[in-house]
């Protein structure tokens, strides 16, 4: 379905703040004309930022702005677990229960938190502070077992530390992640994920790779192990232009 240019000015039937509408226009303008539907993922983060989850109103908002059907938006929104379909807490606690983290303590951590918080997977505590989930691989086996709070890492976390972290969160404190940026509540984070950077200087943090990450590389170096015939300067071939 094509997007007609008039859509942006169209009054949607849903009440979203004028600021959100302005931001939506800004997001859509980042993409080439005719490819507006690429803006769907950031737009979904944007509506999640306003309502704490992707609500039916948010689906309709995205659909109207992008000239998509609501079914198309829902197909995307229900595929990615980062989009919450029910009101979520300010703090999303994700415990990795994949193989590495699971055997190193992740499974026990998840069970402990479940008992401690009294909620199961993808459920939110009655006070609305914490949403618990067991996560698929969080890409941090080198720091296993890990959990994340609003996608920031707490490394080598066992059940007892995890309880401490959620207790602090419920008390209104902000524990400091082991790597990355400082914590901010889920709506604020969603706005960042929509492509509006955190203005705080410490909002975005980056650093050199940690020692556990480099351990393998150092071992390989020490023992002279390398991929046969691999040239690090191999140019990356551009993908063939998509056909219409």
């Amino acid at each position, binding site marked *: 379905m094509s997007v007609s240019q008039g859509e942006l000015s169209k009054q949607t039937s849903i009440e979203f703040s004028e600021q959100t509408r302005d931001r939506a226009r800004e997001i859509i303008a980042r993409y080439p004309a005719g490819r507006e539907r690429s803006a769907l993922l950031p737009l979904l983060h944007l509506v999640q930022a306003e309502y704490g989850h992707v609500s*039916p109103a948010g689906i309709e908002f995205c659909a109207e702005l992008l000239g998509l059907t609501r079914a198309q938006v829902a*197909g995307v929104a229900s595929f990615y677990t980062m989009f919450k379909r029910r009101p979520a807490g300010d703090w999303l606690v994700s415990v990795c229960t994949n193989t590495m983290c699971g055997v190193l303590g992740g499974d026990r951590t998840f069970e402990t938190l479940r008992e401690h918080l009294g909620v199961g997977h993808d459920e939110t505590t009655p006070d609305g502070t914490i949403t618990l989930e067991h996560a698929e691989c969080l890409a941090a086996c080198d720091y296993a077992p890990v959990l994340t709070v609003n996608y920031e890492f707490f490394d080598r976390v066992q059940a007892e530390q995890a309880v401490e972290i959620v207790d602090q969160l419920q008390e209104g404190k902000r524990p400091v992640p082991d790597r990355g940026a400082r914590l901010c509540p889920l709506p604020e984070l969603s706005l960042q994920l929509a492509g509006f950077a955190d203005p705080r200087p410490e909002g975005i943090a980056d650093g050199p790779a940690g020692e556990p990450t480099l351990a393998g590389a150092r071992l390989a170096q020490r023992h002279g192990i390398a991929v046969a015939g691999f040239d690090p300067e191999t140019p990356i071939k551009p993908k063939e232009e998509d056909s219409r």
Partner: protein
Amino acid sequence: MTALDTPTDEVTLTIDGVEVTAPKGALIIRVAEKLGIEIPRFCDHPLLAPVGACRQCLVDVEGQRKPITSCTTPIADGMVVRTHLTSEVARKAQQGIMEFLLINHPLDCPVCDKGGECPLQNQAMSTGAAESRFQDVKRTYPKPINLSTQVLLDRERCVQCARCTRFSEEIAGDPFIELMDRTSDEQVNVYREEMFGGEPGPAGSHSDLGSEPLRSYFSGNTIQICPVGALTSAQYRFRSRPFDLVSTPSVCEHCAAGCAQRTDHRRGKVMRRLAGDDPAVNEEWDCDKGRFGFRYVTAFDRITEPMVRDPQTGALRAAAWSEALAVAAEGLRRARDSSGGVGVLTGGRLTVEDAYAYSKFARIALRTNDVDFRARPLSTEEADFLAAAVAGRQGPTYAEVEQASAVVLAGLEPEEECPILFLRMRKAYRKRALAVHALAPFRTTGYEKLGATVLPCAPGSEATLLAGDASLAAALSQPGAVLVVGERLGGAPGGLSAAVALAERTGARLAWVPRRAGERGALEAGCLPHLLPGGRPVTEPRARAELAGAWGLEAGVLDSRPGRDTGAILAAATAGDLGALVVAGVDPADLSDARAAEQALDAVPFLVSLELRNSAVARRADVVLPVAPTVEKAGSFLTWEGRLRPFEAVLATGAMTDARILDALASQLGVQLNTRDVPAVRAELAALPATDSPRHPPPQVAPAPPPVPADGQAVLATWHQLVDLGTLQDGDDELAGTARPSVVRLGKELATRLGVGDGDPVTVGTGTGALTLPVEVVDMVDAVVWLPTNSPGATVRRSLGAAAGALVSVSVSVSVPVSASVFVSVSPGGSR
């Protein structure tokens, strides 16, 4: 080596040890098919883009670490492919995939509609292992759910091949079903708010259909291409088993698209219809009206025996054929020999053979040229246009439209009025960015799906635009451009004249697309007051002589004076200047003024109705003769292209064709018609000599100044929605449930003047009556108001007695709930 030669854009590869040369870019699965190697598959469909969703078609390719999907992999030079036939790796991979696909499949083939014709069932037998290693509990769902009133989904049977969702987006342009959720919860569904925390509606309520309706005229195709039993038809569910059905090739009787179909019947009853595979016409698709609209034949009011009006009681009573034919012949003889004569209205739904019989019957047995097939708004200009520019001409074809450099649409909304042409144009738009221009009062969803450039055009202004718009002329001047005019352009004074002139000036090909299946055939058969069969003008001595020769007539039998058209015939009847009328499939509610037409039918002294069901004409007739519906007779339709679509009877019943009845009637009048059986008519049509009489000259009607609406008035724009109150859709409730809602559409300026917004009730009226419907504000030419012609609550012809281009009053309805405000009752008869 299998192929004959190797041009540069071909590659040579080996499949199962056979060297084959094929065009570069072809997919392995397609090339294997050509060698007769059938690789199992579910998601692959030749008319859909490759996706590799089901993984069933894995093959072993030399040099690849793992088996690859043959439905997504293009061939390469020197490629060595081994399928399951020669490779243990491929065989085992396919068997493994099948085992995965069946993990959550219920294996409920004995109670599944698809059992017996199911690719999953068949390929599980050919490719799968006899036993599964899966020990756990299968995932189950409540079953079935409605995707629409006519498409049902049993989610646990689905293998997530995405054929249905891809069809909806790519082919139909209606992406209202999508794969929702992920991993083992992944399922096809419409959008439902409860998936996002919304309140679910009560079970059994309308909200079962979801929060965003599957609004598509093509959704039935998803049922047909579903390779498992996940999508089933509400109309057909649990009604038959495939192996109990008798399948007969057939041709759709609904519109001028001429789709090939397969009609499946059991014990003399049609159970379902499927799209036939005809690459030249409908490819493998069908619209929902053609697929589901066939229950009118078995409606309660089907006429099964002849009836005559009893002189004593004044009521119709059953009669023997001999009596009914005698009474009809006597009445027609008297009228013919009186000063008024007999008029013949044939309607637009006859086969070529039947239309020819009417044409011949009128000319020889009734000695009149008062015959007209047009049961809709019409004009003399249109008749001249048809005679000059359409009759006897071939093409352009579907393929030529698909390959066109540009297509201009005037008086035609193809999605509503010729859905298969719409699909072909959409294919061209998607594959090669076909430039489509449309003259229309607003941009419909159909035009949107064609990426059409809409030239805003109030009804009645088409001629001016066709004559003067530079962009149209430029588009049509490219070689291979096509100007497609719908039958509605005939309602715009000067429109068809301008279209002929424009086509001539630019060199573009000209196509005329009527709405009904029988219109083009009736035109060729000479069911027009000034045209004999084969496009022969009645006024041309040579034309009459050719036909008199073919029919074995003496000179002078064929009248040289043009007859009266539908409007004039009915006017003569009302005025008492007509002795009798013979009416075939005509519904007065289709004529521009339905009430006036009914008055004419009441006024005519003698009325013979050849009818299928107890219609508004049959109820008024002096003699009613029951005719065979399409499914019970052989015949042919002509598509809008002029392509002949012959078909044989699906069901053998005693019902007679119109042609056969007319033959009997003619012999009572002492005339040999020779239209007793279809082969005889076909032979006679084939033996008609090609005409070398001069063609009818094209019309040269100047554009009329468009009507100027006064304050509180607007110009009426209207056309039929595909799924509406048409009598050929009677009894198909599941189909009716997918109709687009009846709304009145108007532009922002008019909405502002009226002070209305979306959903507010607005009343559109004429001197005849008024209609009140919820409003939908669109980008519309100012002072134009659009209504569906014959939808629930919007029976324009009957309630307003008006056609497109008429001036109507527009006002706001206050404090009346919309549902109760349709004070003009909906005609139960509907129209054809």
